[in-house]
């Protein structure tokens, strides 16, 4: 179980950074798409958790994820509208979506405490990967100041989620 989990985490961070590392730095329309997609994927995972989780802290955490990521994504939508930017699909967004779909299917097979643990562990890993991408790739590459600032706020929120997930994970042990 532990080995499988570590392998999954390693695969996630590897894929995340590999996808982001390839080629030139992402453009603002691509960055907007990646950030928005990352939020949607976490909302999807959270919605699954709201129906599947048995632990009340895990359920509450999932509800927090839906609320915060929806708030961030609403701001992102408002901003791209204001800047007249059309988010552009790209390989990183595609890789993230593919990985998330696989993870969702994998989690769907689990039940009870096993599901709770796996969901929270993946939340820690996922936020870690997204935060790494924000810090090293997306924020430095963003050229529009407002987009950069929104990504910085997003980073603070997601760092909070990562710590929150780590606390929930510690309590599950």
């Amino acid at each position, binding site marked *: 179980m532990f080995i499988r989990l570590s392998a999954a985490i390693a695969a996630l961070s590897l894929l995340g950074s590999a996808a982001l590392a390839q080629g030139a730095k992402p453009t603002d329309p691509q960055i907007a798409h990646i950030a928005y997609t990352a939020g949607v994927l976490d909302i999807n995972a959270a919605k699954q958790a709201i129906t599947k989780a048995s632990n009340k802290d895990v359920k509450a955490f999932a509800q927090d994820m839906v*609320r*915060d990521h929806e708030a961030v994504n609403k*701001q992102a939508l408002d901003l791209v509208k204001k800047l007249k930017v059309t988010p552009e699909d790209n390989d990183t967004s595609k890789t993230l979506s593919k990985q998330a779909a696989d993870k969702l299917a994998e989690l769907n097979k689990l039940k009870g405490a096993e599901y709770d643990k796996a969901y929270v562990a993946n939340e820690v890993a996922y936020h870690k990967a997204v935060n790494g991408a924000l810090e090293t790739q997306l924020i430095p590459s963003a050229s529009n100041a407002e987009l950069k600032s929104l990504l910085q*706020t997003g980073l603070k929120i997601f760092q909070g989620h990562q710590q*929150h997930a780590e606390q929930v994970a510690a309590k599950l042990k």
Partner: protein
Amino acid sequence: MRSGRCLPFLAVLLGATVLPAHAATIQITIDNLVFAPAEVTAKVGDTIEWINKDVFAHTATARNGDFDVTTPPKKTVTSVLKKAGSVEYYCRYHPNMKAVLTIAP
């Protein structure tokens, strides 16, 4: 006529001089995931006005359990300080948000 007007005025004046002397209202702003000021001193009985300027919900949760205030997005919530102590508090949703409230008896 004259005394009838004078009496309530006197009562208000007296009340006014007695009450605010030990109950202040202190504002703590939450903006872009930061509590400001990060360190506040207050007294038991003071009211804290938690002003959340973010589009996110936050909490101000005492580590020692003395208070737990939830601040919805773009809302101001008030709470009255009931216990003395130097209290570290944080946001339960975003534990990277931290600050200190020192409450004198």
